[in-house]
């Protein structure tokens, strides 16, 4: 069985600083999306139970992805398939989906494609569904547990007020939630070996997608919110209650 895990390179969110309401990215390290790491972990767990499974990590982004992706190879992916072009940085969900779908078409016999339910940075949460539509594949989102057997995936989706157990036929696409598992931290040996694992690197024109035509949305501005929080540190429970009552937040 061939499993593809789509992962996105993102800045380390903790380390983004704000100056004059502008997010600053200087010296902010790059990593892979947190929930994407859950998707990878799920694939690696399946592989550990069945040695015949091959796990390919798939990513589209700028040139730096080639280095960032080592994190995924260290954490258990067998190989990487990358589409690199600086024009892909910050590209629309629809553009990234088209590039990933085109890449998947170039791979042989893919049975399962895993996504995190949203990227850490933009958190738009659309790419998995868009790729499924482009490839005309069954798909299921917001999966908190999954079991693969006999060409089927049986998954639990955790919704607002219920868990829903669903089955889809494979090949198919599953996007997972963070609660699915605890991603492993690779050992030093695994990190050293990661650099030697196979990587297929394509340029954007090798997948035949015109991303300019897929700019369906346009970002007008990205600014830190102006905080109007009171930030009052109260000394006692009485003072807290007074504050809450004066805002009509609790009964008198």
């Amino acid at each position: 069985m061939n499993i593809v895990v789509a992962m996105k390179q993102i800045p380390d969110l903790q380390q983004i600083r704000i100056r004059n309401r502008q997010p600053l990215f200087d010296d902010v390290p790059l990593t892979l999306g947190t929930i994407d790491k859950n998707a990878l972990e799920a694939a690696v767990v399946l592989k550990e139970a069945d040695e015949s499974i091959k796990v390919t990590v798939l990513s589209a982004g700028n040139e730096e992805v080639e280095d960032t992706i080592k994190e995924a190879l260290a954490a258990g992916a067998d190989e990487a398939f990358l589409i690199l072009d600086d024009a892909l940085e910050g590209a629309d969900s629809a553009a990234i989906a088209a590039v990933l779908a085109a890449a998947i078409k170039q791979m042989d016999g893919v049975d399962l494609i895993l996504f995190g339910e949203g990227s850490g940075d933009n958190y738009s949460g659309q790419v998995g569904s868009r790729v499924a539509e482009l490839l005309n594949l069954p798909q299921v989102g917001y999966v908190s547990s999954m079991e693969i057997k006999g060409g089927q995936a049986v998954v639990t989706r955790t919704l607002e007020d219920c868990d829903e157990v669903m089955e889809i036929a494979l090949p198919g696409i599953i996007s997972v939630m963070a609660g699915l598992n605890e991603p492993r931290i690779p050992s030093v040996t695994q990190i050293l070996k990661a650099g030697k694992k196979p990587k297929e690197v394509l340029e954007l024109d090798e997948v035949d997608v015109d991303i300019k035509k897929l700019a369906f949305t346009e970002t007008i501005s990205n600014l830190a919110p102006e905080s109007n929080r009171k930030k009052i540190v109260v000394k006692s429970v009485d003072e807290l209650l007074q504050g809450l009552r004066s805002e009509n937040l609790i009964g008198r």
Partner: protein
Amino acid sequence: MAGTWVFVEQRDGNIRKVTYEMLSKAKSFGDEVSAVVIGKNVEGLAPEFAKYGADKVYVVEGDVFANYNTGAYVVQLAAMIKEYSPNAVLFAHTFNGRDLGSRLAQKLEVGLATDAIDAEISAGKGVFTRAIYAGKALSKVEVATSPVMATIRAGVFELAEAAGAGAVVKPAVAATDADVYQTVKDFIVTVSSRPELTEAEVVVSGGRGCKGPEGIKVVEQLADLLGAALGGSRASIDSGWLGHELQVGQTGKVVNPNLYVACGISGAIQHLAGMSSSKFIAAINTDTEAPIFNVADFGVVGDLFKVVPLLCDELKK
């Protein structure tokens, strides 16, 4: 152009409040407003949408729609959008709403703004505000394709009752069993006497500072006295003190209550992303440096095991 459509989020006839919030907001765009309800035996719900200003209610019924499933719902909506050409289509930013919106957007080859906390739609143009970098920045995004599509966070728009004609329109059923690729095996409904997190007016959450199930019990008491939903940060979910359905955060539930009370939560960025749009935030934490105090309106530096019971005693008076 046939105005703004609001996709009704419902299960077994139970309508999520965010549906009415979207109708209320859509009314302010000054264009025709329609509710779109798809399901089994849902026509009876139509008058509910008229109360919030729906001029029309598109009703689609059939066995194939009995349970939400991406395939049939996408095919049905795509056919209707082609036939009636709405200017904009809004979905709730629920798990099913964003699942549906994303795949439909690709089928129609249009853009989609997800988890919008503000929306302006006029003259075929839609501009939405949404959080990025786990809430460190707000992004203003224009959806430049037609119809304008977005998913809307619950609790951000005020409810406004307004009498609408609510004229029922029954589009042709376009989806068939062949469009269904997901088989629903089971529903496990979360049974709770408390309000559901994403719709609650008040949310009380417990984090690492709870130290265990005993601490959660302390926090639960406060939740019940306030008639609040109970939630938790990742620490209390991963430790097994609370069920995973109660996780508040970027991954988990994004909540937007009038009052959010964070007990023993330090405020990791992923947690802040799930609650920082709450109207008022109160935080109780032993660590004066905890990031949660940066987003709090009222902060109490103290041990929740002492502060919360005192608070409960006062509330009981």
